[in-house]
Each structure stands twice: as structure tokens, then as C-alpha cells.
């Protein structure tokens, strides 16, 4: 039969292959579970059903739409075609203001109400998140 060396080598290759396949499988599976999709308010209007996954919504904060209570911050994200109401309790980034771009991460309650768990800030006042810009440009 085969020598000890060949056997060992064979065993080694199998081991490497198995680990490789396993890790690829693992990575793909958790990618599928942990990916956050980006939608604009218009995308949400055209959704056939609202599912429970975490998503990001981006657009402009509508003028005069920010209102604040002790626990909750409410505002409206618009892409100049459609709008969505957002309710949020948590820390607000500095660059969050009316008429500026915003990305909110959280869960859809229904097609016009979004419960945000995080509002994303950017370092630059000139900066509009690329997704938001793209979403606005498609109009």
C-alpha cells in the first residue's frame, strides 16, 4: 500500500480542505444573517412586505420635522418623493440637523414608520453618505 509519508500528506490535505470548506460555509452563513440593507423612503413604499430584519434608511431630514420629548426624538426622512416617520431614542450625532443627509439604522414597523436604533454621523459637514446621494440622484 502507500507509504507512511504519502498517507500523512493525504491526511493533511484532507484536514486543510475540511477546515477551508467549514470556514467558508461559516462566513457565508453569518454574512447572510448580519448584512444590513440600505433603502430609501421610496424603496420602502414599493416593498411588498415589511420583514423583521435590520435595515438602513437614508435621505434628508425634512424641514421643521424634528421634535423631541424626554425619551424620544421624532423626525421625517424624505427623498423628495416619499417620506418616512422615524422615532429614535439614543445619542444624536452633531451633524444631525434639518435639511442635511442622514442614515438611520433600525427596524421597520410598517411602511411609514421606522424605529431607529442608531443614527449614523459622518466626520465632514460637506459629506453626504454616498448611498443618500445616489438615492437622491436617482430621482
Amino acid at each position, binding site marked *: 500500500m502507500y507509504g507512511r509519508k504519502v498517507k500523512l500528506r493525504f491526511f493533511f490535505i484532507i484536514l486543510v480542505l475540511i477546515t477551508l470548506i467549514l470556514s467558508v460555509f461559516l462566513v457565508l452563513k453569518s454574512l447572510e444573517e448580519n448584512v444590513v440593507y440600505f433603502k430609501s423612503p421610496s424603496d420602502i413604499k414599493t416593498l411588498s412586505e415589511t420583514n423583521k430584519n435590520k435595515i438602513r434608511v437614508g435621505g434628508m431630514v425634512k424641514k421643521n420635522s424634528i421634535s423631541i420629548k424626554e425619551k424620544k426624538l421624532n423626525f421625517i426622512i424624505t427623498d*423628495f418623493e416619499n417620506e418616512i416617520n422615524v422615532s429614535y431614542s439614543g445619542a444624536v450625532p452633531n451633524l444631525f440637523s434639518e*435639511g442635511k443627509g442622514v442614515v438611520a439604522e433600525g427596524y421597520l414597523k410598517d411602511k411609514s414608520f421606522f424605529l431607529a436604533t442608531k443614527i449614523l454621523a459622518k466626520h465632514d*459637514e*460637506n459629506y453626504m453618505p*454616498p*448611498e443618500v*446621494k*445616489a438615492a437622491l440622484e436617482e430621482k
Partner: protein
Amino acid sequence: MRTKIFPISLIIIVSVIFVIFYKGLQNSNVYEPQIGNQKNIPVFIAKAFETEEIFKSEDIFEGDKFYLMNIWSSWCAPCRDEHKFLLNLSNQKNLKIIGLNYKDKKKNATNFLNELNNPYDFIFNDTDGTIAIEWGAYGVPESFLLHKNKIVKKIIGPIDQNSLLEIKELIQ
């Protein structure tokens, strides 16, 4: 056999990654100034200078008329030099002058216009300079003569006597 499969597959994989990155670069939402003569003008959404309301560029640039889109700023010295030519042009009946106030402060810009008079029919705000980039502007001042959503002429730098005459000729 085995020794050949490895390098070939390696090269194929690397090439695929290259292509994907290249494609990704193309739809990567960055500001791409693609403007030359005779192309449709880039559309944009911006605040009006005085009222701060948000306007779409389509609402301002209507089809048949001639427009002069002028990029200016209060801190830019040559903008002062070209101002008298803009005032001259504002008397033309078939030409509307649209300003794009580039990276400016409202207070300074208002002072500038009060001091030198306002030749503009409408002014957009471009606080962060992105619209100017989309229009492919090289700097301030810069002017675009528009007709039917096309750029007829582009004037880089301040308008002078020659370009003034040229504009007048073109809009006849």
C-alpha cells in the same frame, strides 16, 4: 498538470477581483464631472440663496430660454472684476442670469451684492462646493451659457469685454 492549475486559477481570481473593483469604482457614487459642450446639463437640488428653500434645477432652467449660470463667491477677487459685465448682461431681455454661490457665507455674500448690486435672477447655494464639481467647474469664477438644457459656451475665469460680446452674439 497540478502545477499549472494553481497559477492559472490564481491569475483568474486576481483578474476577477480587479474587474469587480473596477466596476465598483464606476458605480461608486462619487462626483464625476462629465461635462463638455453639447451635453445635457447636470441636474441638482439646492437651496435658494435668499429663502433657503430647496429647488430642483429643472424648475429653474426651462427649455427655450438662454441662461447664464455664473459661479461666484464673495471672497473671490476676480468676481468683483466681472461683476460690471454681469450687470450689463442683466439688461438683456432674453437672458436670465443664475448665480451659484460657491462655498460662501450668507452674510458676506449679501454684503457683496448690496455693495455691487445684484445682477442675478436667481441664486442657488453651493455651500459645500459639490454642485460646482458636478458641473466640472475649475474654480471661481466660471460661467456657463445654457440653451435647451445644453451648455453652449463655457467661460473659465472672469467674464471680460470679449466674452461679453460673444455671449451677446450667441443669444441673438
